[in-house]
């Protein structure tokens, strides 16, 4: 029998829950059993139907991931290092230990930062002058200054950031979240990626993909043009009424067919209803003209260099407002210097890149907050790694994976806090190191998901988002 997907998914989730319970201690097991039963009751027909999280009190319903592709420099953004400026032009003192870069050789010289840092907000967290507007939201932001990951080249690090593996083929966090929680909207795709129109990234399309999860959990790439969602527009010469008649005919022919409609075939009929609803309702969502002038100005829509990223951030808000689960908004694309990949001149690159995103990001946080959406929307900011304290080709910086900054806001995250620290030159996370897997685990946690429970049987293994167990960053939840 070919199971309907819903059945397959439910089986997967049930099976692993039972296994998990069986292997745990009884007294805790009964507690978990209650939660499991509740979840089962809420599971309805489709693979995408909304499912209750594991924890009742899960604050976040949606995630917006502001992906700074190419790897922004920690020492130019959220991690001030006066010592680095003092040591500018010198070799790295041996006491800081070793680091392996992609290009920079062992004899490279340290490069001080030209950025000015100021204490912002009531929390007084230091933020550089690249992010004056975002700095204004710092009391809602938890800055993690001690991030690290396993790879120092783009593609592998991008895969690790999105899927917890340094190679392609694993589901991205958006697909996992959709698999775990289902969708809350039936007129919009629920996992959306808005790439930078400047071009693609090294890890390419597989980075965002559903890997081995069923295609119901695939990302929808929103395009900037006249057709934001693939196949949403009618073919030329076909009116909405024509299409409605065709859909009616399809449903009629199916109902009048010899073989009776079972659950799976009925689910197919339902998808036509959904498709039709997407066609009629989605365009309204993408119409930014419905927003006030004041809102446009808040994000920086209509002014350069912010217009493009501002539009995508504003759309991200409109999407989560309508129940979309996961939105990735990419800054940077195409050749390295069009990303945050500042090999040649970090000053030139980061001034340009930050100018495009600072106001839109601040606008997004402000707007979410004033609409009461920030509590239920987890905003994550970061790149696939940071940059080297050493100079490359004059005033550039190489890739660097041992210590860099990311931040989280909203979705129950306690703002105005700093987690962890790098050493005196921003080389290595020395205090409270936070790996991507800890970011993933914290993100799942805020959504009420748990890394072991959220798994899928693939090639004989119950695979999950994290390869090695991550830990929730307790200080900020």
């Amino acid at each position, binding site marked *: 029998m070919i199971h309907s997907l819903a059945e397959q998914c439910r089986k997967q989730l049930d099976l692993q829950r039972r296994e998990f319970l069986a292997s745990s201690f009884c007294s805790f097991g009964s507690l978990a059993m209650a939660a499991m039963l509740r979840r089962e009751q809420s599971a309805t027909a489709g693979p995408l139907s909304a499912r209750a999280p594991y924890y009742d009190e899960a604050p976040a319903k949606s995630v917006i991931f502001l992906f700074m592709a190419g790897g922004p420099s920690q020492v130019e953004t959220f991690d001030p290092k006066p010592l680095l400026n003092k040591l500018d032009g010198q070799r790295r003192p041996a006491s800081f230990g070793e680091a392996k870069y992609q290009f920079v050789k062992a004899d490279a010289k340290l490069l001080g930062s030209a950025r000015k840092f100021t204490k912002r907000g009531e929390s007084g967290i230091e933020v550089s002058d690249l992010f004056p507007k975002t700095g204004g939201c710092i009391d809602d932001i938890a800055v993690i200054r001690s991030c690290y990951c396993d790879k120092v080249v783009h593609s592998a690090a991008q895969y690790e950031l999105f899927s917890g593996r340094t190679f392609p083929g694993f589901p991205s966090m958006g697909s996992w979240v959709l698999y775990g929680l289902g969708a809350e909207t039936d007129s919009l795709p629920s996992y959306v990626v808005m790439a930078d129109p400047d071009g693609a990234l090294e890890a390419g399309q597989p980075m965002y993909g559903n890997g081995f999860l069923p295609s119901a959990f695939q990302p929808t790439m929103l395009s900037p043009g006249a057709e934001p969602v693939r196949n949403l527009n009618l073919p030329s010469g076909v009116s909405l009424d024509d299409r409605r008649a065709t859909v009616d005919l399809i449903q009629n022919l199916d109902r009048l067919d010899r073989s009776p409609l079972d659950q799976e075939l009925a689910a197919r009929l339902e998808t036509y209803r959904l498709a039709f609803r997407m066609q009629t309702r989605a365009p309204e969502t993408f119409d930014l003209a419905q927003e006030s002038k004041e809102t446009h100005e808040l994000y920086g829509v209509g002014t350069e260099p912010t217009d493009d990223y501002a539009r995508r951030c504003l759309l991200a808000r409109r999407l989560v407002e309508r129940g979309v689960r996961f939105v990735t908004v990419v800054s940077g694309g195409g050749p390295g210097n069009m990303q945050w990949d500042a090999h040649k001149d970090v000053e030139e690159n980061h001034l340009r890149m930050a100018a495009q995103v600072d106001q839109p990001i601040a606008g997004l946080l402000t707007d979410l907050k004033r609409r009461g959406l920030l509590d239920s929307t987890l905003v994550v900011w970061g790149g696939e790694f940071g940059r080297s304290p050493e100079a490359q080709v004059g005033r550039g910086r190489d890739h660097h994976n041992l210590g860099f900054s990311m931040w989280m806001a909203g979705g129950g995250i306690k703002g105005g806090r700093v987690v962890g620290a790098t050493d005196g030159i921003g080389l290595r996370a020395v205090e409270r190191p936070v790996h991507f897997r800890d970011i993933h685990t914290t993100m799942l946690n805020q959504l009420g998901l748990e890394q072991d429970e959220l798994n899928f049987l693939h*090639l004989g293994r119950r695979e999950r988002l994290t390869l090695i167990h991550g830990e929730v960053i307790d200080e900020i939840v």
Partner: protein
Amino acid sequence: MTRSQFRLWALPVTALLLSAELAQASDKADRVFTQKERSHWSFQPLADPEVPQFEASGDNDWISTPIDAFVLRRLNEAGLKPAPRGDRRTLARRLSYDLTGLPPTPELLADFEADDSVDAWPRLIDQLLASPHYGEKWGQHWLDVVRFAESEGFEYDRHHDEAWRFRDYVVRSFNGNKPFDRFATEQLCGDELAQQFEGDDPRTNAELRDALVAAGFHRLGPVRRNAGNPEIAFSRNEVLTEMTNAVGTVFLGLTVGCARCHDHFFDPFLQKDYYRLQAFLAETHEFDTPFVDPAEWSQWKTRHDDLTQQIYELKQQSGNANDDEAERIKQQITELQSQLPAPLPSLFSVAGLSDRRTPIHLLERGDETKQRQPVGMRVPSVLVDNDVRELSQDTPQPKTKLAEWVTSPDNPLTARVIVNRIWQYHFGRGLVPTANDFGMNGEPPSHPELLDWLTRHFIETDWDMKAVHRLILTSSVWQQSATSPQKKQAEKLDPDNALLWHMPRRRMTAEELRDSMLAISGELNERLTGPSIMVPVSPELTSLLYKPDQWQVTEDRSEHSRRTIYLIAKRNLRLPFMEAFDQPDLQTSCARRESSTHAPQALELLNGRLSNRLAASFAESLTAEVGSSPERLVQRAFLLTTGRQPTEQQQRAAIEFLLSHPLREFVLALFNVNSFLYVD
């Protein structure tokens, strides 16, 4: 439950998992397997089960093949009855999709319906098994399992322009009914087989060419190329891992990859066993074998290697050069690159290079910098006596040794695994539902005796795959209807249909769907073999490529309508149509396609460019064929898409629709109905 409660509950479990994760490689004595592990079903020699006998004449009437006897016994035990035989049209359509992945022509259906000779069914089976489209359909199954792609993935996603030859080799092997042990051997050690033809020109010696192309199997995994500071040992470890895992998954049905970092959690498979298996591949490296005259090759190589070395040295300098120097170096590099001789045609293959053999060690947590004891080649411990010694790392023809073991009739896994795969592609579910995992964590066989009987039969008939098809397709089990009168009761007893009380209905695969739409609308270009095709795609898609100019649309437009198996399998650009209908992602082995149902599929078929373009052609060819009578148009269109006439009510609804809507829209609707998309 609150989060703190949950964590309290989950903590001990997490700690358990963590402590297991931290179990590290050591030189301690090998773990002793328990009796339960040693006696796991798939590690046992094949049994020689008796075909069940029945007394009731009703039972004996139903049984056409030994397969039926084994299945019927389980059904009887469960108090279930098989479903009635499917009608002739249904069976012929099912057979056509099963063996060729294409819709049956109306003529084929009519002929078979009218043919009342006793051997009409086996003759139809033979006719379709002899069709060149059989290899296209079954070749795709194999390509799924070996994660075939023609690009490397990761950031460069470099194309291998000659990898299509592997696809053709697979299609040809299925069409020629190559014995599976030979098929496996060529893929496992083709480069070593090729050595017997040394000095021959692969352009004229087909056997040599096939052996080299087949060995490309070892290169099918994603490859990460490194820019900047090279990570040679790390990359080599990645390549060895891909090769080793593939041998385990594809041929042995074992998730050996789990043992790279620690002894397998679920299976009696030691970490040492993993590296012993890897040792067979220690000297295997990617190698593009020149597809030219040997003398021309040697000249080319001298020139090419010299220039490449110069370029490499310049690149090393440029990393830390200042702007001016970097610019000068860049110019020099460009100049040298322009002098590089044009690439020679070559075969995508591997070579055993003994001077570049990687010394194989047990690696702590799979980390190539943490080498522990050296290990030699040996097959997994659970399958051999403890006193079998490792072969030394410099044993010549190592992959031939591996292939001999993999295809040995005494190997309890290989034949069972492929027989189970064949069964799965016919029934949607394997006798072992986890086709890539025959270990202790996989599901046990639903009919262990049938699996062993069939496997034994397979080996006795010299690994003849078409013989297995014939047995299955002539069985009464396979010829059951998809609906059963006792559905309500049977669903309660056996909701998964593991006992096969009816034939499962299935949705077409992405390839079948595209190919069918092409065939029905009269656009299918049936050309076989050849380099892969790139079809036009929207600029939004190529803009998602790091190197958009990799997508060079094939100039000859008639090529765009080739069967899907001939479209390029590019890891970083998959066609959205294929993606929506669960084409696997080309990154890891896919043992069984998912079949999901969601709104983007409906949008693809309703508004997509492919379905609308083909609906227009279909409408045109239909009118040309039967004229403008609505009845005839509706009937012919139904026949082509669903294999049968519409019901009266369907016919009425269709004609009513045509009163106010164009034919194009009506046939588009037919591309969307269940009786087209599903195979009963």
